[in-house]
């Protein structure tokens, strides 16, 4: 990745993110999205992030794409803690603790 690429990404993300945040606030009018759009938008984060993460968990670059029990175990623990407690930080710490524990044990 060269420096210019990173700058373009940063500026593109900065402008795009601001426009998303300003969109309805800027237009005001109190109009809402049509129902079908609301339905799809509700699932955006849950639709994007798991698909992004799954290959990183199953085929981690750090092990050369080999399945790694420590990373897999850490991911499962983070998911379980996050789903059960709704506590983001707890899930991060639980996952990292599991990762280090398994890396040390295995």
């Amino acid at each position, binding site marked *: 990745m060269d420096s210019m690429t990173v700058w373009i990404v940063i500026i593109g993300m900065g402008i795009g*993110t601001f426009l998303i945040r*300003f969109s309805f606030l800027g237009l005001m009018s109190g109009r809402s999205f049509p129902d079908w759009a609301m339905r799809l938008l509700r699932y955006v984060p849950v639709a994007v992030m798991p698909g992004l993460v799954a290959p990183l968990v199953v085929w981690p670059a750090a092990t050369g794409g080999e399945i790694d029990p420590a990373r897999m175990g850490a991911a499962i623990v983070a998911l379980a803690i996050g789903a059960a407690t709704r506590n983001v930080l707890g899930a991060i710490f639980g996952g990292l603790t599991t990762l280090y524990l398994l890396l040390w044990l295995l």
Partner: protein
Amino acid sequence: MGNISTANNTPRAWLWRGIRDGLPFTLVIVPFAMLFGVVSTEAGLPLLQTMAMTILVIAGAAQFTAVALLVDNAPIAIIILTALAVNLRMALYSASISTHLGALPVWKKALVAYFLVDQSYAAGVAKFEAEPEAPAASKLAYFFGVVTPIAPLWYGFTLVGAVAGSAIPPEYALDFAVPITFIALIAPMLRTLPHVVTAAVSIIAGLAFVWVPYSMGLMVAAALAMAAGALTEIALERRKGAA
């Protein structure tokens, strides 16, 4: 109640209430910001670019996404579009908060937009819905109150992470901090069946389409997963309607 609530409705009083309600979020912001600083530095971004991203974007999940895709050498357009897809939920925040702050001058709304993060939205909308009759100036003061402890700590601890990050050796497996952080962010969202279906389709399709060039597989997976979530929601509503 009339007199008391009028006295309490000064923007100054609402600013302090906002600061007080924003303080607990610092427990999340500090480690998350540090983690971004570490991960971004580990990924090879120089300090200036790490800070530029954190200040211009202030959206942790999108920033982690962009760094992960930069490391992947994905094309620029794909990186920006994917990061913006992660931030699309903020259009919903914008729509929702506009019913309270829409009447303000444009420059104030632009400032609100810049600071419209998960935490300021969540705290703001809860307060505004509890006291919808409060003047817009007080609501604005509250919003900036919530942001006051959050934003400077976000910038500052990204810096701390970025400076400390380069000193952290590879055996700490920080490559895996990003996946763990994402999982931790998503897991609490899995609160209904359609959300679980969406996540499951996203994982399966994300793995199945990983061979598609230019990271386009993720866009396909996201589209399929969103459709699956919406269709599950419709199916559940139909069943409820029929019962």
